[in-house]
């Protein structure tokens, strides 16, 4: 009788023990998971706290922060996806959830601090560094916002899967209130970070250079026409070539001035491309062809005149020829560099990709043509100096 009673009691006890054994690991696992997530979040917070954008490399430091933040978001999503009903929650688990929410708020506050640091840095760092920094800050605030959302959603999910809500109701409400408050503050910090980052955006439209480029095209075309119209004479060859070399040098100064303005703007702004601006760049490089043609003409003309030209006159002419070739080469390079610089500054490359490629190809082709003319002129001048022992 006693044995039967023990047997009767033993079965439910064993079953209860087995159930306890099955549910305990799940609960322990959730607690461990949340604690691990909090550990990761604390590591990221420490990393952000130790980040000083004034002294650390902006790009790699923020890339690493973004990687950690993304890993954390994925970690939270994985824990959330593995939650299975029924869950038994206790105060320790809720404490861990509270702590995770508090750490997330601290992360959001750190990202706001970094966005302010980036603002200070924008007065000294170049536009590309700031551009990377702005994108990184937006990405970081996106990740931290997502993190706060996922934690809130995980808590809501835990709530729907819990089997002891009634017993823990008061404690759960405290957690939910804390989370709600933290999410509101986190969202506020994320918004402040985004607003700070967006305030640093400084974009120029390429049309700002339309007038300057158009003026250069007009001046360059006029110079090429004058150079091509010049009839060289054996007895005035040196003075004629010196005048042309001076005119070319003057025009080079104008090209270099625009290049300097562009380089200075590039240090402070990014740029939005328009088809008109790109077409102007192509036209600017095409203008160089006229100068190249004029140089080719001089090679032919001086070649014809050299036999009847006095050595000192010829030598001075050839030196002028070398100088104007060098200057046209510098000019061609500066124009090509302007195209490259604008491409570096561009923030809408994707939108105009085909047009940009066409412009770059056309500019390269035009500059290569001029370089060939310059090499021809230099080869001619050097060979003639050697042949005439000048």
């Amino acid at each position, binding site marked *: 009788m006693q044995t039967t009673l023990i047997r009767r009691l033993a079965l439910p006890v064993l079953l209860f023990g087995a159930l306890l054994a099955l549910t305990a690991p799940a609960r322990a696992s959730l607690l461990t998971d949340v604690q691990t997530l909090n550990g990761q979040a604390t590591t990221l917070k420490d990393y952000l706290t130790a980040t000083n954008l004034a002294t650390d490399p902006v790009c790699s430091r923020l890339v690493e922060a973004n990687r950690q933040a993304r890993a954390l978001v994925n970690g939270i999503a994985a824990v959330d996806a593995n939650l299975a009903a029924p869950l038994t929650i206790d105060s320790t688990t809720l404490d861990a959830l509270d702590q995770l929410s508090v750490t997330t708020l601290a992360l959001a506050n750190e990202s706001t601090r970094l966005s302010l640091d980036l603002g200070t840095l924008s007065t000294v760092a170049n536009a590309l560094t700031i551009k990377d920094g702005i994108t990184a800050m937006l990405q970081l605030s996106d990740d931290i*916002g997502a993190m706060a959302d996922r934690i809130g*959603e995980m808590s809501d999910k835990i*709530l729907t899967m819990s089997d002891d809500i009634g017993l823990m*109701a*008061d404690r759960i409400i405290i957690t939910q209130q804390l989370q709600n408050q933290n999410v509101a503050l986190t*969202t506020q910090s994320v918004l402040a970070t985004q607003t700070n980052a967006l305030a640093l955006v400084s974009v120029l439209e390429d049309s700002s250079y339309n007038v300057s480029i158009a003026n250069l095209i007009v001046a360059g075309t006029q110079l090429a026409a004058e150079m091509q119209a010049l009839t060289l004479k054996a007895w005035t060859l040196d003075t004629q070539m010196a005048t042309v070399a001076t005119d070319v040098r003057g025009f080079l100064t104008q090209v270099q001035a625009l290049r300097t303005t562009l380089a200075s703007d590039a240090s402070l702004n990014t740029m939005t491309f328009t088809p008109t601006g790109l077409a102007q760049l192509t036209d600017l490089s095409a203008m160089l062809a006229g100068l190249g043609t004029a140089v080719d003409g001089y090679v032919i003309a001086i070649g014809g005149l050299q036999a009847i030209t006095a050595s000192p006159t010829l030598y001075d002419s050839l030196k002028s020829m070398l100088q104007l070739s060098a200057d046209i080469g510098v000019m061609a390079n500066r124009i090509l560099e302007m195209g490259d610089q604008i491409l570096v500054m561009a923030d*809408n490359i994707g939108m105009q990709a085909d047009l940009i*490629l066409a412009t770059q190809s056309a500019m390269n082709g035009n500059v290569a043509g001029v370089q060939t003319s310059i*090499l021809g002129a230099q080869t001619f001048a050097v060979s003639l100096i050697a042949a005439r022992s000048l």
Partner: protein
Amino acid sequence: MRIKLLAPIAVVLSLFSLPSQASLTTDLQGLVAGLTTLKTQLTGINVTAPGSCTQLGTLNTSIENYNASVSGITAQLPSPLTLTTTDLTSLADLSNLARGMSSEAVRLSQDLRTVEGVYQAFEYQAALSAMLRLSDDIGTMANRILEMGDRILVMADNIGLMADRILITQQLQNSNVALTQAAILTTQQNMVALSDSLSTIAYNLTLGQLKIDTQALSDQMGGTTLTSSNMASQLATLETATTALLTRTVSLYTWTMQTSQGASHYIDGDTLTLLGDLSTLNKTLATALANYANAINTLAPLTNSTVLSDATASMLRLTRDIGTMADRIVEMGDKIIVMADNIGVMSLRIVDTQNLQQSNIVLTQNSVLTAQSVTLTVIKNFGL
């Protein structure tokens, strides 16, 4: 007698010209050594390794400083100067090194193509910018070297003697610059080809449909009156509709997230308006939930435990789903602006939308919290 007088003058002149010539030779050799170091640094960069953006950034700065040195030497060339074979060899070496570096830039741009989809969008964009800057700097360097060669030629006083050697150097430099420019163009083409842009208009149709559906759910919730007998069934019906809407919202969010990985976004104003409208509608849904929770609390003493248990369980799931939906709408906006192409033009509009979304999400979360708190109190008080 005349020769005797000229001899000391020649010696004095040679003393003046020797240091400048020696200085040019030393300067050119220093430039060759410096460029060799830069090329070694470039060769050692692996764009797939962590921290490559810092390496590229540091190298870009070094190249810019190097270019300034070349320009400085060019600006201070003495006139006249006497060219030596060593100088011309240095010029040829510089030109070869610059060409070699442009080939390395092409290699890096090709490597970067292989990490597309592996990197986060931001890292990828930073690497693209750094590569474009690198090719710009290498192109400038090749130009400066060629220009220095040209300037040296203009100032040289022994062109006739060195003509053959000069022509070889000039031809080599010219062909190297052409090859360098071609390599830079290839790098730029690789980078530009990787830059994809998507107008957010692509999302507007789905966002518009979501807005219609959310409005319909809001109307449905507004038209639902809970009683002690129908609360479980009514909430179950609403739960089904909400889950379906959440699925569509998450699906659009996933699409946005995937496209943000591979393309930048050109933000359309209507997209921002729709995102703002949706967050306002979500706030209305959450307000309705808070009202339901209060209704359930009032009706609870008159309601059957099973019905009440089902209703409270539905309420908790509804708060979860509507909370998640509201979160996803805000996150969608965050994703889009991270990779925005026209951020400068739209920045004020973006900040306005973000402000609207922020105030809506706070109100939504407050209503969700109220609904949850009241529901939990009911569960506790009625031992459900």
